[in-house]
């Protein structure tokens, strides 16, 4: 597998570390145990197109959001993950 890092260009799988589904959003402070349980433990585990967090630890150390097909391993899009897992904080 090769991932096109938006910062570094196309790189070999070995430079990246996988975390998991990028869809779950970390609940805000004060969320219930049920909400956090859902975020931490339950997964759609999609067979097909999915969006995932990968870490370019062997390169620029950017966390990426990768759109990938779990049936074919084909990657259709990669973008920086910045903010992908958090609700936009009100500042």
């Amino acid at each position: 597998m090769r991932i096109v890092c938006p910062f570094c260009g196309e790189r070999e799988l070995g430079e990246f570390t996988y975390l998991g589904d990028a869809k779950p959003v970390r609940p805000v402070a004060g969320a219930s145990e049920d909400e956090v349980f859902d975020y931490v433990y339950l997964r759609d585990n999609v067979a097909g197109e999915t969006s995932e967090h990968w870490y370019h630890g062997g390169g620029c150390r950017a966390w990426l959001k990768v759109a990938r097909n779990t049936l074919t391993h084909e990657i259709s899009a990669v973008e920086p993950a910045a903010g992908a897992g958090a609700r936009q904080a009100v500042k």
Partner: protein
Amino acid sequence: MADFSWGSRSPLEHALVAGAHGARGTEAGVSLTEIRDFDLIQVMARRGQAAELAKAAKARFGVAAPNAPKAVQTSDAILIWSGPDQFFVLSKGGKHTMQTLAPALSGPASLSDQSHARALINIAGSKARIMLAKLSSIDLHPEVFPIGSAAATSMDHTSVTLWRGDDRPDGQAVFSLLVFATFAESLWHTMLDAAAEYGVEISHSEELA
């Protein structure tokens, strides 16, 4: 009172044995040169201040700092991209240190001294690319990785910063490599193993280029 000596010791001091290594008989296909005692400062833009940092860097270095995987030569330093909104300032002789850079850059950026955190190795020779192909998964073809290209990448599962500076007078490409100091001896031995079949010329230098 004891008399303290504070001699600096390169992480490759023990492993590097100057001279020939590996296959003999023909001209060495690979030359490995360690550059010792350099200053290396990592400059990271603060949240939302990449543009301000770019301006400040331009003012400080006279050239734009790289905002993509490139290495830029200034009159007295090399600016090497190290990740989004960050770059290294590599220099010698105290020209660009935490003390000298902070006034110019510490507003829009965080600075981190990495001078001792890395070893710096220059790789050249007619077999440099084929040797590097054993270590690096990135494409170093002259058209894909021209002079001034840089990469934050891995060799032998070890994070490195790799870039291509100006060619030697004889036209041979020179690749420069920053590797974490505590991994340096290990990667050095791996490089020697990879290069041995081509013949290696080993040296160290106090000069950047």
